[in-house]
């Protein structure tokens, strides 16, 4: 009997669950960890999209060789059959040109019309005019500064007209035309910043685009400054306006376009280097022969320099902001006057 009672008691206890007690305040020693807060400079707007900061001295400056440059290919001496020399473009019927998305005065979108405009865009249209007799047969693609060579190598674009400085090392990757513009590298700063040249840069942040010659110039001339590397020059203006950079190191044609958008900025300092821009094309490969394209582009540049178009374009875009010593001289490699390929060579064309 007793055993049975004990069994019953145990059973009844098992069937019973105590109501859960809820304490309003449970004093414990471990206070809940406060949410991690980002460090101070992370408040507010982020750095421009795709940009990165390089600490002073993190990278050794590479030499920018702008004196030992191989000249470009001369235009054909006689009128060439373009369907043979640059068949793939003629077949497409359009020229695909890589430009900057928002580089004031050089290549930018007019917000009223929605059209792309600027010195480089006009130059691209002149090239198209000579190929197709129609300046509108151009398909513009935006390329980032650092992707210029790869966009050409992957044949995403036929030409790059995007403030691309001719250097010896770049000639290993792309084929340049003869230069279309010469520039001086200088600094753009806020008017109240008291920066008058590269001497004041130590301890400050310099903005350049990634993969540009300005990046090497910044490493060379401002070794004690942080370097903000952006995807485009417009991002540098954003960084300057957001106080994430103290100066922009670039060419005066680019800087004048930036200064035109912000009256509180000014171009300061002496010229750090003189450079020239050229149209870049892919190096000739077994699949795509770009020789004909290079010669065709050079013939356009020659025409633009000779018939006054160059001055017209320069006056339209830069006259208000910059003085110029005129167009850059033609720069060709020594070779026999090239003759366009004849009909019978058709089999050899890709």
């Amino acid at each position, binding site marked *: 009997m007793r055993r049975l009672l004990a069994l019953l008691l145990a059973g009844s206890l098992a*069937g019973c*669950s105590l*109501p859960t007690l809820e304490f309003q305040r449970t004093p414990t020693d471990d206070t809940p960890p406060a949410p991690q807060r980002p460090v101070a400079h992370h408040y507010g707007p982020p750095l421009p999209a795709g940009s990165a900061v390089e600490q002073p001295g993190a990278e050794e400056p590479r030499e920018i060789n702008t004196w030992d440059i191989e000249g470009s290919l001369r235009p054909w001496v006689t009128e060439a059959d373009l369907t043979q020399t640059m068949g793939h473009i003629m077949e497409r019927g359009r020229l695909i040109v890589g430009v900057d998305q928002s580089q004031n005065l050089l290549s930018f979108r007019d917000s009223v*019309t929605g059209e792309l405009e600027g010195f480089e865009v006009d130059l691209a249209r002149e090239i198209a005019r000579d190929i197709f007799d129609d300046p509108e047969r151009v398909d513009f693609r935006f390329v980032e500064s650092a992707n210029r060579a790869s966009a050409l190598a992957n044949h995403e674009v036929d030409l790059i007209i995007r403030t691309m400085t001719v250097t010896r090392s770049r000639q290993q990757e792309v084929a340049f035309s003869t230069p279309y513009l010469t520039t001086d590298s200088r600094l753009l700063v806020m008017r109240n910043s008291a920066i008058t040249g590269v001497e004041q840069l130590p301890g400050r942040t310099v903005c350049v685009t990634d993969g540009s010659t300005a990046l090497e110039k910044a490493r060379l001339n401002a070794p004690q400054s942080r370097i903000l590397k952006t995807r485009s020059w417009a991002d540098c203006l954003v960084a300057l306006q957001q106080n994430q950079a103290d100066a922009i190191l670039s060419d005066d044609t680019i800087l004048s376009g930036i200064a035109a958008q912000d009256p509180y900025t000014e171009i300061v300092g002496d010229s750090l280097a003189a450079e020239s821009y050229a149209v870049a094309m892919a190096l000739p490969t077994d699949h795509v022969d770009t020789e004909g394209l290079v010669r065709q582009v050079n013939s356009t540049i020659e025409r633009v320099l000779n018939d006054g178009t160059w001055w017209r374009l320069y006056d339209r875009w830069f006259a208000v902001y910059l003085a110029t010593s005129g167009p850059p001289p033609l720069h060709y490699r020594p070779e026999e006057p090239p003759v366009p390929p004849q009909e019978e060579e058709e089999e050899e064309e890709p």
Partner: protein
Amino acid sequence: MTGATENPERATGPTGTLLHYRRTRLRTPGNGSTRASISVPDDDGADVPEDTRDHWLDEVTSDEEHRRRGAMARIMDTFAVPYLWLRRIFAFLATTPGKLVGITVILSVAIFAAGWSMSQSSSDRQQELDVLLTTTEPMSYAAHNLYTSLSLADTIATTGFVQAGVESAGTRARYNAAVDRAMMSATESAAGIPFSDRETLQLIADIERQIPIYTGLVETARTNNRMGNPVGVAYMAEASSLMREQILPDAATLFASTSANVRDQQHQLTRPQWVPLSGLFAAVFFLLIAQWLLWRMTRRRLNRGFLAATGLMLIAILWVSASNFSTWQAGTRGFEEASMPWDSLTASRIEAQQARTLETLALVRRQSVADTSTSFAETADAIDLALTDFEQAEGHNPLSSEANRDQIVEARSALDDWEGAHARFVVAMNSGDYAEAVRLATTTTLVPGSPPTAAASYDRLDGALSRLIADARSSMRAFINDGLAATQLVSTAVLLLSVLAILAVWIGVRPRLQEYL
């Protein structure tokens, strides 16, 4: 007691008996020397009979005995009374009326415990279902709204930058509405989170911290655009990348975790309440044993009270089981017919928005769209699959409305249109017809006679999807509500039935007891 342990030496001292010493010491709370100088002969008290002495102190009469018997005796003393009681109780329980009383008491405790635990469990479940309905599910919905509004705001702001001129008043209004809805949703989704859920709070805090930065950048971009400064595009790119790389992934994580919460809670709350149910079964089992014992003791086969108690407990079991079953059924059907379609619809709506963003980004960046067409086809497939899911779920639902079928048809046709328009958009982009690409991707006005644009078809698709999602959501809530309704009254009913059963047991046993009185 204290005197004996504190000063055992004094007991054999020259002052006389221990009792005498204690009394004098208590009256003159000094040391031995003062006691010697003060003479208190009148109040010696040793000659007064025991029972007439003043009793202002507890009497300690057996000091010497205690000392001699030691610890064992003290244990015996401590437990002597309870032991006596126990012996008496067991003696009583050994008698037949004792057995009757014992069984009845144990039965009462068992029934009450089972009933109480079931009632508590049911009321907990009801509360949790209520939390699911009023907090968890609305939070998940708010997270979904947060994601879609943010994504919409970014798409509108971005497309504003590929169209010529300043954006229209309507576009501006839609952007403002999307941002407003996003902020509302962020606050709503934060409302139901316990302060201990740091991760979710951090997600919402990050989103809410970045939205003002995003809108600030968009406004700067707009102002620059109005001024004709190309840097506006750079500001817009910065804003858009902030949205796509930080805010939207956070919002997606928030949505995923909140909808997982809904699923988990729903699943958990539809499981049968096995443990408390087993308690009820145990109570019935005890009742049956008790009746068998009663029969053995009293030679009466059936007892009306006990029978009634058994019946009442069986009713309780039935009631709980029925409630459990209908909750489970509502949960299962709710999952199949509402939760699952809701999940796939929300996921595919988000995918559609991402595809739309890719479309506009291709315009803004003037990129090749070749790589986006494969992902676009996948997105279209996912949307189609989600629509099929929903259709099948609707097929199970006898109350499915004509309106829903219309919405599915609308969504399907909008999806077809969008696919066609996207194909034309890709062709236009690849052939350099930028103006046509812009028109296809941004114009929402339909030109009679020409096929609809991507923007217009997407808007139709998104509208249809959002209406279907709203419908799936309301049926999901209806199912949760059904589950809640099934738990209604269970708690009270079970408690009441158990109390009645206890009463019945006592009433039943009373005449048997009276036979012995």
